[in-house]
């Protein structure tokens, strides 16, 4: 009966939520926005590519003064350019419209900028003058180098691989960071998207005056557990729907979106980090859910619960103010406080876990703290629901809750 009713609550809560138009509006708004943004990016990239091609092929008349002695006159000649007699003459020619552009290459281009003068063709098209001036200098210099390898180095097309060791053991670097960071992403998405729903989940019974009937048909622990589990499942559904456009975009339109080719085979799934990440995520979710459910049971309306709800949500962002310390100085006092204060512990713990600065023993303490506190808060939420929800129109004081 107990298990049966838990299942009933979960299915009822999920069904009534997914039947709400508001849920789907919230659920689909972000993926649709992503699709729109991706479409615009693809369109813009294609447009930019064609503009670049056009600019590359664009012909305009120009003159130049070369104080560096690096410019290849033959190259300039191919591009229909010519050397000016003096700087003032060149500028005057641009001003009068006799030529489109005039470049002054300084004696030391590495220290002094190339001066570019041109006829105004609009903010975006004016960029072609500087591009061509730079291209002439680079190509002229490359001709002097005469070594494809040196040219490649000069162009900066050099790759590097980094191997780091921690305590004598190969460390994962960014490839180990990404999988662990996913826990943090999941946590944020669930709390931000479902926080309000967590808060109002028991307010529903209260506002609809069904608490007494519910309490005589189902154990309140089962009811609250059912609500928490259904919220978690809805959160998972929401994340899958959120992830879909990103996955589709990467799989089918990676080139059009100019996304880097990620080599997932290099990702490192460190068992300790993955286990700690999972446990901290679940503990953090249970703690925040329990707290929000308890808050909903103690307050007569969602509006009354608003200020405390806002404070709780702020607590999951506060660790980011100390991001650099969390990533690099795990022994800083503020990092220790954030690591062990229950409502900042999930985010801090997951960040430190991802950066590899959360030792196992500290991770165990954080997990234990979150899980134990979650159990206490969930029990408090049940108590609040049992004794608070029938106080349909007034807030309960803590004294009343504990003396009930």
């Amino acid at each position, binding site marked *: 009966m*107990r298990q049966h009713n838990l299942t009933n609550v979960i299915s009822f809560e999920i069904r009534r939520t997914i039947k709400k138009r508001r849920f789907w509006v919230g659920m689909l708004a972000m993926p649709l926005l992503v699709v729109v943004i991706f479409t615009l990016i693809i369109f813009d990239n294609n447009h930019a590519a064609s503009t670049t091609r056009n600019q590359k092929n664009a012909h305009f008349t120009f003159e130049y003064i070369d104080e560096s002695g690096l410019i290849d006159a033959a190259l300039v000649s191919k591009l229909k350019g010519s050397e000016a007699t003096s700087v003032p003459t060149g500028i005057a020619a641009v001003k009068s419209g006799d030529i489109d552009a005039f470049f002054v290459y300084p004696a030391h281009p590495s220290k002094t900028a190339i001066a570019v003068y041109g006829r105004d063709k609009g903010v975006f098209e004016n960029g072609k003058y500087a591009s061509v001036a730079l291209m002439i200098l680079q190509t002229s210099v490359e001709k002097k180098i005469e070594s494809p390898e040196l040219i490649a180095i000069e162009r900066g097309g050099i790759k590097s691989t980094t191997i780091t060791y921690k305590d004598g053991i190969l460390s994962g670097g960014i490839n180990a960071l990404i999988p662990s960071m996913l826990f943090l992403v999941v946590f944020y998405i669930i709390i931000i998207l479902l926080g309000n729903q967590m808060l109002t989940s028991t307010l529903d019974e209260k506002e609809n005056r069904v608490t007494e009937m519910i309490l*005589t048909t189902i154990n309140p622990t089962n009811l609250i557990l059912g609500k928490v589990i259904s919220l978690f499942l809805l959160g998972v559904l929401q994340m899958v729907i959120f992830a879909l456009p990103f996955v589709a975009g990467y799989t089918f339109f990676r080139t059009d979106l100019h996304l880097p080719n990620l080599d997932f085979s290099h990702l490192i799934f460190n068992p300790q980090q993955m286990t700690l990440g999972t446990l901290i995520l679940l503990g953090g979710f249970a703690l925040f859910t329990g707290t929000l459910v308890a808050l909903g049971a103690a307050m007569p309306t969602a509006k009354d619960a608003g200020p405390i709800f806002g404070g709780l949500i702020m607590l999951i962002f506060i660790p980011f103010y100390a991001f650099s310390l969390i990533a690099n100085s795990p022994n800083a006092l503020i990092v220790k406080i954030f690591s062990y204060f229950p409502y900042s512990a999930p985010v801090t713990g997951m960040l430190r876990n991802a950066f590899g600065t959360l030792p196992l023993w500290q991770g165990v303490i954080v997990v234990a703290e979150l899980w134990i506190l979650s159990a206490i808060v969930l029990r408090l939420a049940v108590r609040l629901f049992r004794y608070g929800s029938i106080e349909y129109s007034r807030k309960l004081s803590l004294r009343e809750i504990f003396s009930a």
Partner: protein
Amino acid sequence: MSGATPLVHVDHFGMDFGKKNVIRDLSFDVMAGETFGLLGSNGSGKTTTIRALLGIYLPTRGNLQINGRAFRPEIGIKLGYLPEERGLYKKESVIDVMVYFGKLKGLNRDSAYKWSVDYLEQVGLADKEKISVDKLSSGEQQKIQLGVTIMNNPELLILDEPTKGFDPVNRRLLMNLIDAQKRLGSTVLMVTHQMEEVERLCDRIILLKDGVSRAYGTVEEVQNEFGNTLIHVEHQGRIPLADSYKIIQKSESNSTLEVANGTKLADILRRLVESGVNVSKFTPSRKSLDDIFVEIYGVDDLKEVE
């Protein structure tokens, strides 16, 4: 009373809210199969007693048991509870709400659905099953609430102010449902101010005042305890004063006398006749529960009730 073991047992129950002593010391039993009335003015602790009985409140003192155990939803008894504060999931469809409660009460989905459809048909709401509850009139919502209360064919039906806010049609429906449940063997525990309902339905009653019992027993026992017999006399001539009766109300030709304990009615009639009163009608009656209620709670409490 149809059974020897009480289905509901309340033993020296006391309840404090902070420093406020709501129930001082209350004991009563409800036997299986009977209809029991819990009566009292506002604030006398009736709803608190029901909530403590159902485990919604933790009692400060004493034991409250249903079927020999403190109530928890999973103890197995089939319970129907119509609370004073009524409500349903307003944004959900009628059928979804009914099926959900049916499932919580132990019915499987098909049985809950079939029962709900039959009930909606029976109460004239067959075409409303897919409509959300908040689109129904308050009278229609009351019908749904009643259906949800009895859909598991409860062994124990607890009704807190069952007719409160009900229109006459639903009041009659409720009474019929209570009758039907009684016929099916349900035990009914009802909290009410409506004395005519009590007289019509209840086998036994308890009257609460200031957190203690003021009367407890069958309706007849309570009437006997509180109400000496009254005599309505139609007469000509002045009613004389006497120790054997008290004149409650008198006019030129109609008077009401309250019979003193141990006095025979024939002696009073003889006394009147011998005093020269021409008696044309002599009708003895008991005090109504209404009168007893007024006597216990006083006019101030009664105003509060009204």
